[in-house]
């Protein structure tokens, strides 16, 4: 089932795995604060490391975050 080409992909996500991670619901709950922090020039991932970590790992949430940043910059 696992192929040679899967190895680096899988090992990379394993390497980045933390014991404590927040889920998508908690990330979404805090996404507006995180986006405002980011736009105000604060390093949002330092202020909210678990949200930053989740956004790094979850493409679904990251795409919403990036869309929100673009929307906020454009309005």
């Amino acid at each position: 089932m696992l192929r040679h080409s899967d190895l680096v992909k899988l090992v990379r996500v394993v390497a980045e795995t933390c014991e404590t991670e927040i889920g998508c619901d908690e990330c979404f709950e805090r996404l507006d604060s995180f986006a405002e922090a980011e736009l105000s020039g604060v390093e949002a991932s330092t202020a909210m490391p678990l949200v930053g970590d989740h956004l790094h790992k979850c493409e679904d949430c990251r795409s919403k975050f990036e869309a929100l940043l673009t929307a906020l910059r454009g309005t």
Partner: protein
Amino acid sequence: MKERTNEQWLIELRGSNPDEALVDLYDLLVRGLRAALDGYGGGVDANVEDFAQEALIKITANLGSFRGESRFTTWAQKIAMNVALTELKRRRWRDVSLQDLFARREAADREAADTQLTPEQLALQNTVLGELRRVVDQELTNRQREAVVAVILEGMPISEVATRMGTNQNALYKLLHDARRKLKRRMEAAGLSPQEVLAAFDEG
């Protein structure tokens, strides 16, 4: 648009004459969606007003869940982005079933090993793959295995995999987190540091 504090937004939207606030909010959502989805392609621009309308319904139905930790308009735009991107992902993946995804993998399974690797890298690759295969095949649950393949290896959005597996995005993320933690512990117990493995393949 009239400037409003968070409290003014809530008072107006909950009041007996919310029309002006609704119009202003709708206009803001449309502008935000246009900016965010610009360049998305596929005629998405035509859907912006539908997304804004659907978001407006969700926002007004859930005013009680706004906790005031950001500007009200940021919170509202977050909901609009969620509505739009969830729907766009659903459309993009609607013709792909998990069964198709797994069948395609199986058909491509007789793949030759990477011939660019040094003998040392090849030996390490075989050792790591052997351990990962053992854990994936014997220690992960069927659902964890399916999620690992679909989300991590095949890159299907977690929300779309969740729908097909009869669960939700949050629960599937947690299921994958459990699977990743198990793989990490087993690799470490077998003396295989994930960082060292990546470094050996120049991916660290």
